[in-house]
């Protein structure tokens, strides 16, 4: 009964977002393969984006497109969506760089495991 109420109040976009963030973090911290880490970053980024979207998401409202019919009052908040676009772009850039560096690191003879790339320390 109560559980159901809580479940109802949960934001259906934020929950998967949070889950994805956690999965992403786990991937970053626990996977040793450089490429898998890059993928984990993508997952993390996606999760964050979902969370952002969830803030603008309002139950029962329409997409924030001004096409003359829908009133502004019945729209979801457009700002987060705009932000997400930017975030996605940036995430893309980061992912691309990560991957390219991973490639260069591996092709340089170091292997794909992050553990072997730790000569600088202390």
């Amino acid at each position: 009964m109560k559980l159901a109420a809580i479940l109802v109040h949960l934001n259906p976009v934020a929950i998967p977002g949070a889950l994805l963030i956690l999965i992403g973090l786990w991937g970053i911290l626990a996977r040793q393969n450089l490429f898998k880490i890059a993928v984990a970053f993508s997952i993390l980024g996606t999760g964050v984006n979902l969370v952002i979207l969830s803030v603008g998401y309002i139950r029962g409202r329409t997409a924030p497109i001004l096409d003359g019919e829908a009133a502004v009052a019945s729209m979801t908040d457009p700002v987060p969506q705009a932000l997400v676009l930017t975030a996605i772009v940036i995430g893309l850039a980061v992912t691309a760089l990560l991957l390219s560096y991973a490639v260069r690191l591996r092709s340089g003879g170091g292997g794909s495991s992050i553990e072997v790339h730790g000569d600088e320390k202390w």
Partner: protein
Amino acid sequence: MVNPLYLFAASLAAAFLLPLVDKLGRRASLALVYLVGLAWLAAAVSWLLALVQGGVAQDFGTAGFMAPLAIVLRVGLLEAAGVLAVAAVGLLSAAAMHASLRQAPAGGAMAFLMLLMGLCGVILTRDLFNLFVFLEISAIATYSLIGFDDRRPALRSAFKYMLAGGIASALYLIGVIYVYRFGDTLNLDLAIRAPGLAGAAGNAALFFLLAALLVELKPFPANGWALDVYQTAHPGLAAMLSGASATALLLALWKLLPLFGTAHLVIIAGSGLATFLAGNLAGARQRYTRRMLGYSSVAQIGLAMAVLALGTLFKLGSELFLLAVAGGFVLNHLLAKTGLFLLSAAFEQAGLTDAAGVDGVDVVDTVDDAAGASAAAQPARRLSPLALAVAGGLVLALVGLPPFPGFWAKWQLVQALADRSRWWLIGLILGGSLVEAFYMLRWLGRLVAARGAAPVPTLRLGAGLLGPAVAAVALAGLGVLSGVFGLTGALDPKAGSTLASLAGEPWLWAPWAVAAVLFLLDWLPGWLKGLLALGAVAAFAWLVQDRLDGLRQIFAIMLLGGGGLFIVAALRKPGSRGGLHPLLAMVTLSLGAVLLAETRLGFFFAWETMTLSSWLLVRRGQASRQPALSYIVFGLGGAFLLMVGLAAGGFDSAGAWPSGALASWPFLLALVGILVKAGALGLHVWLPGAYAEADDESSGLLSASLSKAAVFGLFALVLSRGIPGSLSISLGAIGGPWLWRALGWVGLATALAGALYAVWQEDIKKTLAWSSMGQIGYIILAFALMDQAGWTASLYLAFNHFLYKSMLFLAVAGVIQRVGTRNMYEMGGLIKKMPVSFLTVLMAIIALSGVPPLTGFGGKWLLYSSLIAKGWYLEAAVAFFASGVAFLYLYRLIHSIFLGQPKLNQSGVREAPLALIAPQLLLMGVLMALSVFPKLLLDPILEITSRVFPPTLGFSGDALVSPLGYWNGTLTMIVTGGVFALCLLWLVINLRNSQGVRQFNIVFAGERPLRPETTHYAWRFFEPYRQAVGGLVRSRAERFWVLVGGGVSAVGGALRRLYTGNGQTYALHVVMYVVVLYLVMGVVL
């Protein structure tokens, strides 16, 4: 004002155009980069000018809208200064990276443009999400720049950086979206006023924002990636990161500060302080220059962060004050670190690896692998004087020595904290600073190649020196400005008056001015420089003479006169003797400045100047790397203690010691600070090495004059400014007698230990060094008596010590110069070759040992009379023992050097050069005059002391009368002279057919001596004595300090083990850091 949007547009346009322009050649595209950089610079300058001339901060909306509808950029004073800094550093870095940028693909230049623009954006924007965008732009640009020239280690570091940066940006995004959620705006100014952010949810949202920003600011321990980047990236880029990037981020933090509540501030302050301490501790163990600079960088940023938060938390002062202090730190760090990284870039271009090169640019691993390392590695190349000056300026600025901005900022900060009794904070900050000073000065000390040995080729740095030089000059200029106008003076002359400055004390700048001029003239021949230095000292003395009252006059003779003597002595060797004369003049004038200082800031400034210049002088010695290091570390440690004490009060009329506070611990700290310089037992470990390893004339200056500055410090500490006028040192307020009794015992222990150590030295200068320490001990003991007789004794002893220690060091300098060794057992029988030096030493040791009829006895008489009269009986007995021990080393000194068997290889030795003999003759004359007429010296001293205390000593005819006894120096001299003449006459009459014989004509148990070496009894001269009483002194102090050093080093070593080099570990650190911060915030809330 120029709309910054144009600049962003220009930057972007330039970046997009670059691939096209690149077709014209890389030179063109780089020109474009410089052009954009210059544009930013020009804009910043124009904004700054406009604002300083009374303009107000101006907001620029985008697309014709203002907030909340659009992103707003604000150009205020801080923003303008920030952009100026970023642009300037950017240009310098670009110049340093020029060669690399030319070779790498065009993307490098593009990335550089983006980095520049991103950082400026971070500074200018007032929109939280826009801030994220600019942060990411600069981050991505940095990632790609780290790897742009394909250094493999840099690639690794970049990857680690991306892991940490990625997590930080995720945090920021979450934070920003919830701030938007709860505050309904993304605009900073609106968010500050937004009520929705006040609650718990708002706090949490802000926390994410803050955490992300903090991670970008490289806090301990979530900063391993940053250190790797500093170490591996192109040094030019490292300069950009450490200087420009950190400045931009700090400004961003500053902007966001009003958003945060107490809990956030606590987090910032705590994190900053932890970073400062941990960074410095770990830095102390670094062997790679750039990693060391990285640690220092991290620590400095931490300090700036902490100051920002603390200022608000503890309400340390007005916003302007905070701005000044934090700004001072940031500016100092920005310029110094940029300069140093660029310098390391120049080293790299000159072909040095990071870890070794100029006399080992690498840093030794532990504090105490001293002698071996310095002796083993003769430098392959050495830095040109200019490069050295630049490096020195940068490091000194970083360490916070005068006259650089950091010095003033530190002073203001400590003052403010002391006013609010935040002593533990002062302790943390100064402790961390000391560690930083240790490793930075160690590094600097290594850059200075030992002189003397065969000439080594100079390292050509060429144009690479430009950037560091610009930074150094800027630092010096800003520092001097801050000094003259107060710290904020550089930013806003109108505000200058609110903060302490040296405006009223122009004389304190004399050492710097003279040193600067003389360094510029360092190409002149030595004798000319010597004369110039002498002239400078004389002029200084003449100009300031009427500012000196009685006490200061006496000290002026010792300090300035001593300086003059040793400058004359420096003429003893032909040749330019680069750097010696300016430094001698600087030390001498800084001693004068110590005397002249009227405010506490002035006193501390002069004190630090003295410490610094004498350190340079010590470092000029041949094997002085390790001794000089411990000299400066102890010197700075003492200075920091003094600073804390002065911050609490005392010294100047503005703040006499709070009543009853003489015994309270700030005063105690100041006292200990001065005792460090005096070399009191336990704090003396720097002393023998520094005195022994400096150039011979410098040692004399240190021992004879500089130690008197410490004595003066003692007097200055308890007397308020201007002895004749305000002699109202409220003696009632002097703390319990236990304090002075304890100080007396410290002095006594110093005297005894100094004498005992001196007995067992083989090195002539070490003997003298320990002897100095012992003599200062007596002076402290007499000072601690706190009555007229005691002070008279103290001043009399001080003056005498100046006399005979000068004589000894001058004579010994001549001996060492002629003989070429400092080991006494390698000398012998020099009396026939160097009769004048012998006479000097003879008179000096008679005076030093206190044997009548020479003037030294007066000191002993005064000391014992006053001790017994005061009722310090046990002290008197121990003092008697200690001065008996002095006979041992004095006899040994003169025997081993001048008497006994001459060595065969020293048959060609001549008398010391005139430059040494002349001052000796002068001093001998003074000594004789004072011996025959003790009144000459005692009258002025009595005049001073009887104004402070009720007089108990006085002259009756020629006899000095104390409550216990009397002493007639003149009659003593006459009787002694008469008796001596009588005995001599008897000898001459009765000695028949005297045959002068040679050194081997001795009775040798029926044999003949085989070699002078085996006949001269000098090695381990007092071995039985060591067997008997050696247990009294077993280097406990040394062991203690080695333990302390080892402990600090071990802590640093343990801390840096956190940085495993694994990117995932670093990422974990970041995550854990955020979690811990969150928990801490929960606790604070």
